[in-house]
């Protein structure tokens, strides 16, 4: 691993200050940063450790939204009664990230900052219309996650910005959601395709709101606006589900890699979107 200077400040203010002063980079749980430093993909002269800033580890309702601190680990997401009730898709994704060891160390903010196209929590957060609040010595700003993610490993984060928290509006009682993941192995799998679906269906089986997000099939996790539009206002029938799934398939642009071909990934988008919608339809 390359050499670097290291500091591990106890407070957020200090992290921000040292980040600005040194022009360094952040490390939190380290589950992505350290392997990438081993291979040279991640480089930094200064590494500022966020892992002591425990004030950023929380899940709390706030003014009609739910806020999750950037340093919140996956285990905390999984064990949160609030998220189990109101963001099951995020809980399901967290349960499938890496293995237990990764779920203790890895953080939600880290999953966002790493910006892997296959990052498991990203499609659920996109489906939740999550916004990310960033802080730095210069102040703070809030930006939609969809705008933050810019490409594989690329975000709109300025070098001196820290992910303070992620927030999304609380959902009405009739909202249901699901996360489905396909990997080449059952344990410790990296997603070949993952899909998050969020649905609100009224009493007449008409779709009030539909959000579909896909992972590992484009440079960033993406939403499927056309597929969502097909659903909106319509009764949730098998025909409609099929058309929606087909649309989602057309909206993605996967690549071939060591895990799967682009063609397989595209086809799996259709299968998983269809399954997700069917499962939610059956629940409602």
């Amino acid at each position, binding site marked *: 691993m390359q050499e670097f200077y290291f500091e591990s400040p106890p407070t957020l203010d200090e992290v921000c200050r040292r980040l600005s002063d040194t022009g360094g980079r952040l490390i939190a749980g380290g589950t992505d940063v350290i392997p990438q430093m081993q291979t040279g993909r991640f480089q930094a002269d200064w590494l500022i450790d966020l892992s002591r800033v425990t004030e950023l580890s929380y899940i709390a309702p706030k003014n009609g939204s739910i806020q999750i601190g950037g340093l919140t680990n996956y285990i905390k997401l999984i064990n949160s009664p609030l998220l189990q009730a109101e963001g099951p898709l995020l809980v399901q994704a967290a349960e499938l990230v890496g*293995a237990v060891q990764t779920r203790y160390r890895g953080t939600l903010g880290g999953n966002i900052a790493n910006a892997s196209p296959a990052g498991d929590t990203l499609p659920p957060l996109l489906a939740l219309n999550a916004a990310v609040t960033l802080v730095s010595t210069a102040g703070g700003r809030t930006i939609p996650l969809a705008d933050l993610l810019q490409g594989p490993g690329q975000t709109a984060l300025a070098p001196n910005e820290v992910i303070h928290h992620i927030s999304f509006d609380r959902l009405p009682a009739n909202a249901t959601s699901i996360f489905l993941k396909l990997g080449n192995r059952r344990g410790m799998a990296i997603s070949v395709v993952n899909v998050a679906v969020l649905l609100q269906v009224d009493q007449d089986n008409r779709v009030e709101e539909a959000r579909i997000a896909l992972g590992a099939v484009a440079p960033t996790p993406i939403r499927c606006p056309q597929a969502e539009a097909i659903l909106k206002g319509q009764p949730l029938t098998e025909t409609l589900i099929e058309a929606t799934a087909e649309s989602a398939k057309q909206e993605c642009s996967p690549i071939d890699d060591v895990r799967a071909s682009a063609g397989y990934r595209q086809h799996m988008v259709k299968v998983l979107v269809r399954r997700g919608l069917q499962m939610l339809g059956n629940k409602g």
Partner: protein
Amino acid sequence: MANLHMVGQSVIRKDAWTKVTGQAQYASDVSLPGMLYLKIIFAGRPHARILSIDSSAALKQPGVVVVLTAADVPVNQRGLIIPDQQVFCAEKVRFVGDQVAAVVAETAEQATRAARLVKIEYEDLPVLDNPLGAMKTGAALVHEDKPGNICHQVRLRRGDVDAALAQADIIVEREYFTPMQEHAYLEPEGGLGYIDEQGRVTVRTSGQSTHDDLRQIAAALDLPQERVRVIYGAIGGAFGGREDVSIQIALALAAWKLQRPVKITWGRDESIIGHGKRHAIIMRHKWGARHDGTLIAAKVEIISDAGAYNYTSGDVLTNFRYAAVGAYEIPNVSMDGYAVYTNNVPGCACRGFGSPQATFAAEMQMEQLAEQLGLDPVTIRLQNCVRDGSMLATQSEIPRGVSLPKLIETCAHEIGAYRQAGGWRMPAASPAEERYKRRGIGIAAGMKNSGFGWGFPEGSEARVVLHGVAEIERAEVHTAAADVGQGAHSVLAQIAAEVLPIPLDRIEMVTSDTADSGDAGPASASRLTMFAGNAVKQAAEQALQRWRDEERPATGGGRWNAPPTTKPDPETGACINSISYAYGAQAVEVEVDIETGEIRIIKAVAVHDPGRAVNPQQVSGQLQGGIAQAQGWALTENFITQGGYVRTDRLSTYLIPTILDAIPDIKLVCLEEPDVVGPFGVRGVGEIGFIMLAPAIVSAVHNAVEVWFDRLPLTPERVLSALLPTSG
């Protein structure tokens, strides 16, 4: 066998305590004061001429002591069977993991950093990335003295195959492919080299045969064998992948040259490109049978990817002379086999030594025949499988005590099949819970030789020393047998305790040090419990006799020689190829997701014959472990190379089964039919659990979705593309 008090007991293994407390010392766990660190520089390209090597920049780095290259190696060659590889490449490199140079420095980081500064200029040569291309006329040569890139060629002729095929009622002709497999032992290669108190260059490492390592080190360093010493500590798995040397010679050379302790530890990526792989093999089969299912002819062509160097390619290929037709007796067999040099990572020993590949193709042929003849899979196997009196394809009679028919019947019963008029009825699979899933059941059988055979003069050395005055207070068992994790040392102690009138806890194992023990032979070919077991038994009996003759301490031992096998006739392959076999039958129930191609194994039945289980708990461990490794080979382990480059050189891309993937319900049944050679009737069980799982899975998948697969692994994508031939 009457009145055994220790053989047959599931006693706790001797090394368990040190392993669960972290006290066991593996190759990288030992250090010496003042030691240096070694970094080996790989070719990093599949085929190239070396134009120049410039170490000057590296040598100027802080802490760097020396840069070793070909010029530093007294006899620059290595190879377990034939010396076709150089310790450090001088003129050209033949695969990405070829070793070109090595840096020795005061710290590991300094060595790694300096290694990047060794400037090696190459001129790339055409890359041969598959054996079919390499066999073509005009193809570049991997080794200039091997025309056609043929590393080995073997033949077998029994009866008149063409005449028999002409008379067959049915012919099944298919081509199969099985992929490379990475052993993925959890402990990457490592070791410590030093000069011992008697001036011997000593390598403490993990391997499968201390004495084979020693011979190759001594030859390369041009030292008499007495001046070299190899010691194994705790070994973190092997599965055949440690049969060939990896770091041993470079480490010995560095320690010898510098007369200082030197340490090396490979990372996982270095391990994956640095040691051999299970051979990828193309198998072309044309079998003929009668209407009633009786096999009459098999014509087989085998093309094995030897990779860049021989390693054990010739021997793996030779095993096809009996194994190509699986566990079946066929009166007319012809087999032509080729091991072909390419620029891939060399093929080497890997649990089963060719038998898993051979058995996969043979079992698939049986399934095809059964389907086309309208026979059930149990009946056709029982009708043709080897039994007492059977002649193998090598035209020798199979050793007596063949339990296979009984194992197949038991396995069929256990999975829910039953006998009915005219044959057997396989059970229907349980219904799947989702509408997009299908379940199916499949069964397969197989056999595996124990010991090398084929005329290799085989045996094992051991020494037992009894201490005490009036009574035996303790016994030392000296053996170089490698405990690679299979529990060899514990099982050998149990065998000694069976012979000696003292309890197990008074038997001390003195192991795996060439300075102390003679050659026990490698931990390979399911052989140690049989061969080293016989040697220990013989040594204990002799020591006990001498104890009774009042010798104090009483020492017994020497070499136990196995009954001889014979070399195959080059034209017909006729010979006595092996003295002992293990047998097995396995059945699985799988669930296939027909929309994603994912396969889940719901349950498995495995019926095996350990002859006499010395330690039943360890026997079941071997079988369960073999099954899991075979599951990986069949389903998730997709070793990808592209133009000679390995694309799956990490455990995040090469996917071995996790505990979440492992078959949740395995029913193991052991039926004991004592072997004629093994001590107390023991048969080797190290490999047999692996042999027939893959074909059982493929048969079960066919039962579920009515599609045959001729290639492994069954990745979701491959399965789906077969189910949906039109999809992208």
